[in-house]
Structures are given as structure tokens and as C-alpha cells.
């Protein structure tokens, strides 16, 4: 028996990992990433002469009906026109029957890479708020993402925030939605550290917007994790979003976004009941310059009183 050299083995591996785009208008460039649901490739759109990101889902569309449903879902997701949602350009089927989505190729860093680059807490919260706004928009259009995590959020080269990977999204009030992946209750979809308890139990029929809110809480928790000085309020917001019972979470992503906005503006948030001392401290922190001016005024008054007496 002859052994293959490492070089030959690596070459074989790369050929096997290359997606087969022969029946499409795309040319394979390189693999961008791989996850449980599928892989994402950088490809060139030969017709429009531009780079696109192509997600190929692992499971083939076994029947025509399933394929049509997935294409319908892609159409709905493509209809989510929002600056925070990566646009879907195209959807189709590969020669081997697997479904693919072609999306805008976003240049920039993933949220986890952005955080690792040392972004300040304030910047992280601002980016997180943009994520909440994008997810709230999708929810308002009946779409639940189901796989929100830092790796699925991109910070573009202009600082814009884009939520990616809507390939396993669920269309609310559509029992047939994502049937390929759900195969009914019991199949777990998502990423373990970021999924809600009900999602981890595979209760796919019961999932609603609050499953995404749990994931957003987990993303927030990730962003707060390595920060040296995180306020109790920020932690309380993450904890409320990640409550085990979905009834205890924020009802909408907009509510979560509003609490983040209030936190950034040093306003009281719904997730945390502050005591009188904390209320005064927050007010003083927010109005530091005015407080300093009034103190300066009082000091000057005391000074004048003493000088007039002497």
C-alpha cells in the first residue's frame, strides 16, 4: 500500500471542500467559514462581476415542495430591506440538490473580532443597539432569526452593523416554515451558548420572538464579559433578556433596544430598579459639569462670606 503525501492530502481536502457551482453563475473563490448548518463561501458573480457570499445549507431539498418552501422563505428574508440586515441577492439549487443563498459580501469584522480588538463598552453597546433594531425590524415582518450570535453579526468597514445568516430563520405563524430543518419538534436549531432554553429543548413550534431576545441577551453578555467595569444596570439588562422563563424576558427587541439607549443616556432602565442613592449618583454622573458649576458657585459664596466678615 502506498501512502499519500501531506501535500496531496491537503490538495484533496481543499478540492472536496470546494463547493460545486458549475450549474450557477458563480465561481468559487474560497471558503469563508463553516458551521453546523452549512458553509459560507466567497464567490464571484460572473454576470455582475462582483464578489458575493454564498451560504450552502447542509441539507438538500429532498422534495420539490420543500425546495419551494425554502425559496419562498428566502424571498421573505430578501424582503427585509433594512440597513442592519444583510441583503439576499439570489437563491437557488446546486447540482447536488443543496439549496444556496447568495448574499452581499460584507467586508469588516465579526462582532467577536470587533470586541477582541478592544472596542470600548460604549461602542459595544451602540453596536448592540443597532443589532436589536435590525432584529426588531425582522420581528415586525414576522421573521425570527433563531441563530443570533457574535459570529453572525458583522461590523462593516464604515462601522455599519449587519445581521447575517438568516438561513435557518423561521417565518412566524407559518407552521410549514423551515420544515427541512425543523422536522417537527425535537430537532435543535441554533448555537448552544446562545440559544434559549425552549430552543435547546427543540420546542420549535413554540418558538417566538423571545427566543431571539434570549440570544440577544447572550450576545450582550458576551460583549460585557471581558469588560473591567460593567454597571449592575447593564448586567441586569442582559439578565432580563436571558430569563429562563420567556414571559420574564423583554417582550420585543425594541424594548431591549430602548433600555440600551436609556443606559447609554444614563436614564433609568426597565430591567433595574435603582435605590435613591443610585438615582442621585446617576443624575450627578450625567450632569457632572452642572454639579461642578453649582459647587463652584457655592464655594465662591462661602469664600465671599468669609472675606466680607474678615
Amino acid at each position, binding site marked *: 500500500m502506498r501512502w499519500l503525501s501531506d501535500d496531496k492530502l491537503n490538495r484533496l481536502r481543499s478540492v472536496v471542500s470546494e463547493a460545486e457551482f458549475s450549474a450557477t453563475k458563480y465561481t468559487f473563490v474560497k471558503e469563508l467559514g463553516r458551521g453546523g448548518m452549512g458553509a459560507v463561501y466567497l464567490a464571484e458573480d460572473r454576470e455582475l462581476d462582483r464578489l458575493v457570499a454564498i451560504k450552502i445549507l447542509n441539507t438538500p431539498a429532498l422534495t420539490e415542495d420543500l425546495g419551494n418552501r425554502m425559496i419562498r422563505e428566502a424571498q421573505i428574508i430578501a424582503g427585509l430591506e433594512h440597513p442592519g440586515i444583510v441583503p439576499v441577492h439570489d437563491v437557488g439549487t446546486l447540482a447536488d440538490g443543496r439549496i444556496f443563498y447568495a448574499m452581499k459580501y460584507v467586508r469588516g469584522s465579526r462582532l467577536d473580532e470587533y470586541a477582541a480588538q478592544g472596542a470600548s463598552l460604549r461602542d459595544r453597546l451602540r453596536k448592540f443597539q443597532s443589532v436589536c433594531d435590525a432584529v426588531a425590524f425582522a420581528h415586525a415582518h414576522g421573521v425570527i432569526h433563531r441563530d443570533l450570535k457574535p459570529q453572525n453579526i458583522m461590523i462593516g468597514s464604515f462601522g455599519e452593523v449587519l445581521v447575517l445568516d438568516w438561513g435557518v430563520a423561521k417565518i412566524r405563524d407559518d407552521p410549514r416554515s423551515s420544515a427541512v430543518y425543523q422536522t417537527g419538534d425535537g430537532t435543535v436549531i441554533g448555537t448552544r451558548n446562545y440559544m434559549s432554553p425552549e430552543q435547546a429543548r427543540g420546542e420549535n413550534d413554540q418558538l417566538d420572538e423571545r427566543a431571539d431576545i434570549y440570544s440577544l441577551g447572550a450576545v450582550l453578555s458576551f460583549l460585557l464579559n471581558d469588560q473591567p467595569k460593567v454597571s449592575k444596570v447593564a448586567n441586569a439588562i442582559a439578565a432580563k433578556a436571558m430569563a429562563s422563563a420567556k414571559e420574564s424576558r423583554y417582550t420585543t427587541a425594541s424594548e431591549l433596544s430602548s433600555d440600551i439607549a436609556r443606559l447609554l443616556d444614563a436614564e433609568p432602565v426597565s430591567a433595574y430598579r435603582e435605590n435613591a442613592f443610585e438615582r442621585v449618583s446617576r443624575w450627578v454622573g450625567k450632569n457632572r*459639569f*452642572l454639579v461642578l*458649576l*453649582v459647587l*463652584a*458657585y457655592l464655594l*465662591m*459664596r462661602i469664600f*465671599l*462670606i468669609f472675606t*466680607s*466678615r474678615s
Partner: protein
Amino acid sequence: MSKPLIGVILGAVLGVIDGLTAWFTPAVRNELFGIVIGSTIKGIIAGIAIGFFAKKFHSLPIGILFGVLVGAFLAWLVAFMQGGYYFEIILPGTLVGLIVGFATQKYGTPVEAN
């Protein structure tokens, strides 16, 4: 709250406090009531001027500068009419102008353009 309203309220409150501190100066304690009234009116006039300025010009540094100038000028006018206590009147008056100038720019609601 509108910028002129903040100016009037803050000017009046600080004017009252400003006037009441005259109690610590025994030589003028008998005239305390008149001083408080005068100081309050001065504060209100300064607040109106600074508030309307802030409504027109949306700039924190310029607002503070205008507040300082108005506060100092009105205080100088009072000291001039009193014929003394220049330092004791102009210094607090200037600081009151500074505070009102800052607060109107920072906390006043800008008027929306039609």
C-alpha cells in the same frame, strides 16, 4: 422645557439664592428684602436674555460666553447703582450667568424647524 423657560426659572432661583446670601453681610442685612427682590429681577432678566440667545444660537461655548457677559454686565450695573461691593456682586453674578448659559444650551429643548 424650552430654553427661555429654563433661563427664567434658573435665573430666578439663583437670583433668590444670590440675594439671600446678603444675610451673611451684617452691613446690608437690614436691606435684605430689597436685595432679594432686586437680585431675583436681575436673575430673571439675565435668564430671559440668555434663554432667547440660546434659542437662536445652538452652541455651548457661545452660550456660556454670552451668559458670562450678560451676568457680568447686569451685576456691574447693580454694583454701579449701589456705588460699591463690585467684587461681591460681579463675581457671583458672572457665575450665575455662566450656569444659566450652560444649562439653557445643554438642557433646553431646541425649537423644531417648520
